[in-house]
């Protein structure tokens, strides 16, 4: 079966890593993001940006895993932020109240500037 989420990581930046998603964030997709995020945290990265430009659909199980990552980040005094959400994904994140715990930015540049300053 395909339809699986593809991730690309850019960890060659100063002070933050960007994770790019491509596809559906469901159970497995969320877990894949968590795996990659925890790997980056292990390596000492405390600032993560999830660029969701390649994602049109997220389900609530996927979101619940994202909330777990946010929690972990709060514990270690790190930061997790999102950018390039579709209006519907942004709306869904607001319904869940995620915006209180994680930054949501329209584009990558704004996110990076705000997170690293």
């Amino acid at each position, binding site marked *: 079966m395909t339809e699986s989420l593809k991730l690309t990581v850019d960890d060659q930046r100063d002070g933050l890593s960007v994770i790019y998603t491509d596809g559906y964030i469901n159970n497995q997709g969320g877990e894949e993001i968590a795996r990659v995020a925890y790997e980056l945290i292990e390596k000492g990265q405390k600032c993560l940006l999830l660029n969701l430009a390649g994602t049109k659909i997220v389900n609530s199980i996927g979101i619940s895993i994202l909330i777990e990552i946010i929690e972990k980040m709060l514990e270690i005094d790190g930061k997790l932020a999102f950018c390039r959400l579709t209006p519907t994904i942004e709306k869904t994140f607001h319904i869940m109240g995620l915006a*209180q715990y994680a930054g949501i930015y329209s584009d990558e540049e704004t996110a990076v500037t705000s997170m690293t300053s």
Partner: protein
Amino acid sequence: MQQVRLTLPMIPNMELTASKTACAMGEQIGLSPDKIDEVQMAVVEACINAFEHSGAADREVRILFQVLGSTDEPNGLEIIIQDGGGGFSPDKIRPRDTEEILNAPRKRGHGLRIIDGLMDEVEIRSDSEGTTVVMRKMR
């Protein structure tokens, strides 16, 4: 009235077939792309609830897509998602706030809130014969 029926097996990712059908119907009646996205996500949530919680013996979800208004002037889309599972008491499902979710051991309980938030109207009928979620999105 214009009706499309879809019957899906309860298998992971089948919710995407339902959401694509919803997309095609939404385009058909001229819903805006953002509203179509909202319908697609709500359909996904309703399907995975049926997959995960219904316990239906036939392992099938039945979906009816219904165009509201006239054929010439459709004014919305009604989607009825039905399973033959054990049902639940929608009134007893209390919306949890984020604080509570963050502190709960399992981070769940979002599906119905998402459906409510993304659709214009939602009705849930559930008893021991199964669950029917009726949701509407107006143009």
